[in-house]
């Protein structure tokens, strides 16, 4: 889901930087108010976890690869705004050091994976685990479902961003200037892969870590304010 340089036109890149700017600003303000000093190591671990889990490429045999993001997990533990910051840090380091995701697409990639994914996941988790103890089986299940839905909605957004490009930018002869696939290909491809394969990876990773923390550190699972 890391959109590289050259797949999105300048307009799309600019818009997503413009959209992310206020989101990053609000996230900083909220984290400033709510995050405690002792939570900073967990934020660092969360960002590092998201980074390293994205290195575990899962193949679709003979086809493409994909991976979990781990972002819903961070959102459940620290709230969606802190997760936004943690995943942004991971995505920026990936783009700058490893060329994983484009420099011009940092806005769009952060919108999909550092905003849509943790927020959708966080609210799905809260809706399902509402009124249940954080240590319950239903909460772990809710975490898995939240991971699955969060990454899928993010993938659909990425598919739409890819798919709009041929419409927005093409030569007089009809050749695409950036991503060559339209909505009719990009959205089903991105959604299909994540619905069938990568969404389940995110679900299992999220549920397993929550299950582990329920046993080892239940005090980290108390509801976080959005």
């Amino acid at each position, binding site marked *: 889901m890391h959109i590289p340089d*050259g797949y999105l036109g300048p307009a799309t890149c600019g818009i997503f930087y413009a959209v992310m700017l206020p989101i990053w600003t609000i996230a900083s303000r909220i984290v400033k108010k709510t995050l405690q000093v002792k939570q900073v190591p967990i934020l660092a671990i969360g960002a590092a976890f998201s980074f390293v889990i994205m290195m575990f490429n899962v193949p679709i045999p003979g086809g493409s690869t994909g991976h979990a993001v781990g972002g819903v997990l961070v959102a459940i533990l620290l709230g969606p705004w802190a997760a936004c910051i943690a995943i942004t840090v991971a995505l920026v380091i990936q783009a700058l050091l490893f060329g994983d995701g484009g420099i011009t697409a940092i806005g769009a990639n952060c919108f999909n994976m550092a905003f849509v994914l943790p927020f959708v996941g966080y609210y799905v988790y809260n809706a399902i685990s509402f009124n249940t103890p954080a240590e319950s089986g239903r909460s772990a299940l809710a975490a898995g479902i939240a991971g699955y839905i969060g990454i899928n909605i993010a993938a659909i957004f990425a598919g739409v961003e890819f798919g709009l490009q041929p419409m927005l930018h093409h030569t007089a002869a009809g050749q695409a200037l950036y991503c060559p696939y339209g909505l009719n290909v990009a959205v089903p491809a991105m959604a299909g892969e994540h619905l069938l394969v990568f969404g389940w990876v995110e679900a299992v990773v999220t549920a397993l870590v929550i299950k582990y923390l329920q046993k080892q550190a239940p005090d980290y699972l108390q509801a976080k304010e959005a």
Partner: protein
Amino acid sequence: MKITTKLWIGLAVLVVLSPLGLIIPDHFKAGSAWGEWGGDEIKALVGYVPQGLEKLAGLWNAPIPDYAFKGWEAKGLPQLSLAYVISAIVGILFIVLTVILVGKLLVKKGG
């Protein structure tokens, strides 16, 4: 043991296992992620390299491109796996330093 210590150990285990993310896709002959193709791949898919894409694709020269050292592209899986583990360590170091810095800027003391 403190839970954060356990989680750091968990991260270290993930770092050591990370080459699986390289080896397993290679074994199943899976290619790039959707929408993350290089110029040659995209030409094979649609018959041409979109002009704007060609221009922008080389915009940034990452120091460790695709979690492999420059010039190591043709090396075998063992070397690429080593580069992958080192990339994971370098990436985590940068991320942890950045978060600590952000934390220092954002979080008030004694909270």
